């Protein structure tokens, strides 16, 4: 429970809470981006450099941009003022409390089985690369296939619209 | 060759860059206000009043006929005719403008006042260095500021000024010759006493 962890955890929780609480959709995405950055900083604090920088590059650099593009393309230009809190707050709080209880129980049950692990040596990028190419090559290839399918699907969708508008 | 367009372009700009330090052709900037481009003779900025001789009030050619005031499209000229008369260059008594104002913030340099003036009194100046801190009174030129000598007119528009001077001299010579012929005829008439009624020729001659 170092000071760095407390600060970063507060930042992440505040960012994601703001992402749920703010009215303006783009503000929500920007607050979520702060949450992403907080998670990346937590990875860095755990000495996982590769994962931390990849988190910034992928989430802040690409996913956040994707989210704001989506909001901008679909939302109306004048933001409709919605009430900040939903009418069904009681049911929502019960569900949130239940999910929190399940997660807390799962983490506690998992951590008591192997308490206080000895500090691991730092994982280098070379080791990650070796693991990806030897042990986890099948998930890597499946992921590549999935991304290719997504790219082709995007191109097909874009092409269809161009032919319709002719 | 692949990529030769970009390479040729880069070579050209490099030639421009290094050439601008060596030859004046490549660097054509005139550093105003220390250097100025020479003006052509037909340049014009705003009108001015011409005066002959040394005294600007005595030698002013303008007789306040007010044609330029009427013809000016944006109506930037204000003329008030004087009550008395003064002799002009040929000795004839003419009126003169008591007030002659041109507002150069309105003037559009169209030169119509110059074209319609029958007395070659108003001509176009070439001076564009007219900055002032007061944008209303500073840009309203009165009679004194507008009067510039015939020598100045010769400086800025030499061929035009020479042509105007030649035309004016020819007119004065013709007028003098006519006056002399009329004086001779009057003297001959006074010398010959035969009172035979004769039809007098029409006296008025077109100028």
């Amino acid at each position, binding site marked *: 429970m170092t000071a760095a962890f407390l600060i970063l955890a507060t930042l992440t929780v505040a960012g994601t809470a703001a992402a749920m609480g703010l009215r303006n959709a783009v503000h929500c995405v920007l607050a979520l981006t702060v949450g992403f950055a907080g998670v990346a900083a937590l990875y860095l604090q755990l000495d996982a450099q590769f994962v931390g920088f990849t988190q910034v*590059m992928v989430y802040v650099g690409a996913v956040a941009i994707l989210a704001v593009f989506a909001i901008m393309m679909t939302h109306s230009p004048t933001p409709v003022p919605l009430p900040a809190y939903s009418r069904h707050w009681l049911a929502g709080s019960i569900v949130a409390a239940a999910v929190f209880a399940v997660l807390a129980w799962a983490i506690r049950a998992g951590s008591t089985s192997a308490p206080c692990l000895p500090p691991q040596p730092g994982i280098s990028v070379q080791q990650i690369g070796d693991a990806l190419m030897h042990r986890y090559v099948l998930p890597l290839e499946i992921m590549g296939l999935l991304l290719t399918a997504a790219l082709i699907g995007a191109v097909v969708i874009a092409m269809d619209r161009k032919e319709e508008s002719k | 060759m692949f*990529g030769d367009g970009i390479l040729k372009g880069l070579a050209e700009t490099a030639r421009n860059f290094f050439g601008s330090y060596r030859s004046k052709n490549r*660097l054509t900037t005139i550093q105003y206000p220390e250097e100025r481009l020479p003006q052509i003779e037909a340049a014009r900025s705003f009108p001015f009043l011409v005066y002959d001789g040394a005294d600007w009030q005595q030698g002013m050619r303008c007789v306040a006929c007010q044609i330029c005031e009427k013809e000016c499209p944006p109506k930037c000229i204000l003329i008030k005719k004087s009550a008395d008369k003064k002799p002009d260059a040929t000795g004839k008594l003419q009126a003169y403008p008591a007030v002659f104002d041109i507002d150069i913030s309105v003037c559009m340099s169209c030169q119509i006042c110059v074209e319609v003036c029958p007395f070659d009194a108003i001509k176009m100046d070439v001076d564009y260095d007219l900055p002032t801190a007061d944008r209303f009174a500073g840009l309203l030129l009165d009679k004194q500021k507008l009067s510039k000598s015939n020598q100045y007119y010769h400086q800025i528009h030499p061929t035009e000024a020479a042509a105007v001077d030649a035309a004016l001299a020819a007119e004065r010579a013709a007028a003098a010759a006519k006056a002399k012929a009329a004086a001779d005829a009057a003297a001959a008439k006074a010398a010959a006493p035969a009172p035979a009624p004769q039809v007098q020729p029409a006296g008025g001659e077109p100028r």
Partner: protein
Amino acid sequence: MTQTLDQIFVIAKAWLLGYLPVAARPLASAVLCVIAIVITFPLLFAITTWLERKGLGRIQNRLGPNRTGPFGLFQPIADAIKSLTKEDIVPLTADHAVHFLAPLLLVAAAFLAYAVLPVGRNMVLVNLNAGVLFFFAVGSVVELSVFMAGWSSRSKYSLLGAMRAIAQMISYEVPLVLATVAVIMQAGSLSTVDIVNQQATYTHTLPHWFVFTPWGFVGFVLFMIAATAESNRSPFDLPEGESEIIAGYYIEYSGFKFALFFLGEYLGMFATSGMAITLFLGGWAAPFSFLTWIPSYVWFFLKLLALIGFFIWIRGTLPRLRMDQLMNLAWEFVLPMALLNMLVAGVWHFMPHGLLRWLVCTAIVAIPCILLAAGLKRKKKFQVRTYQFAE
């Protein structure tokens, strides 16, 4: 003696840190390095604005600024005073919080990128194991700030400019990273210090820079094209083209915030140039082994100035690319060439040394390059427009 001159800043920092207690030394060391970066690169920014205006002027057959100080050398100071004293106008319907934060985020991201550039021997702010990845991660934050600037102004032109800018930046980020992958493959490490150390060796006075190999040369060219597009510089400056969209996503900014955008853009240009120097041009290493007596940081800044001069030269030469031409160039030329470059780097690594290696690798990049370029020049068949109501 040359060794001392080379390490003068390191020695000075160690001497300064000697006055502090041991517990405060890491933090103080970082703070000193940060101060050095914050002073050096904005100063370089001021010099670059002067160079650009004079250089572009001479290329365009005119003098640049020459009234403020001798040869206009005080022009950056005049520009700074002007931008500081201008009125800060924010549109009435703009989103004030986001409008304020966008230039800050841009400048912060641009400054962060300098943390992994080795400016001289033993002169890097932090030697990260994944330094190159950190650099590109920080570079991708710039796109978010561009979006924030464009969207918060609530103006059609700024939004349009932001869209174009983000599309361009994302399209060119892929070839940028792929051109780097070839270097990483060869160097075997993501750390910038390791990459430079590998290039700092000599064989018979000739250096081992990566740009002197086929894959390194092609990678360098592709990296420079992508870097020009990433910093929105001519000929890729359609998002901020002054004659088209009048400053694009930062139209509604005035005064100091505009100066911050300008600063952030130029800092990004320096950072990507610095990364190009680190990856391909040997970082702080001298070009010939008999020139190593000149300090390492001098070499780095000389190379940086050379690249900046090249950027200015290109700006004065090439016309602006249209948006569709820009995108076609990215996806149909630069990206396939970057992928081929990776293949060539692998072939280079596994083939035995010699002339055959050079010929094979050069053939693998040259032939597709010419074919792809011919494909780009192919004339598009445009439809004949039929007007319905104009008869």
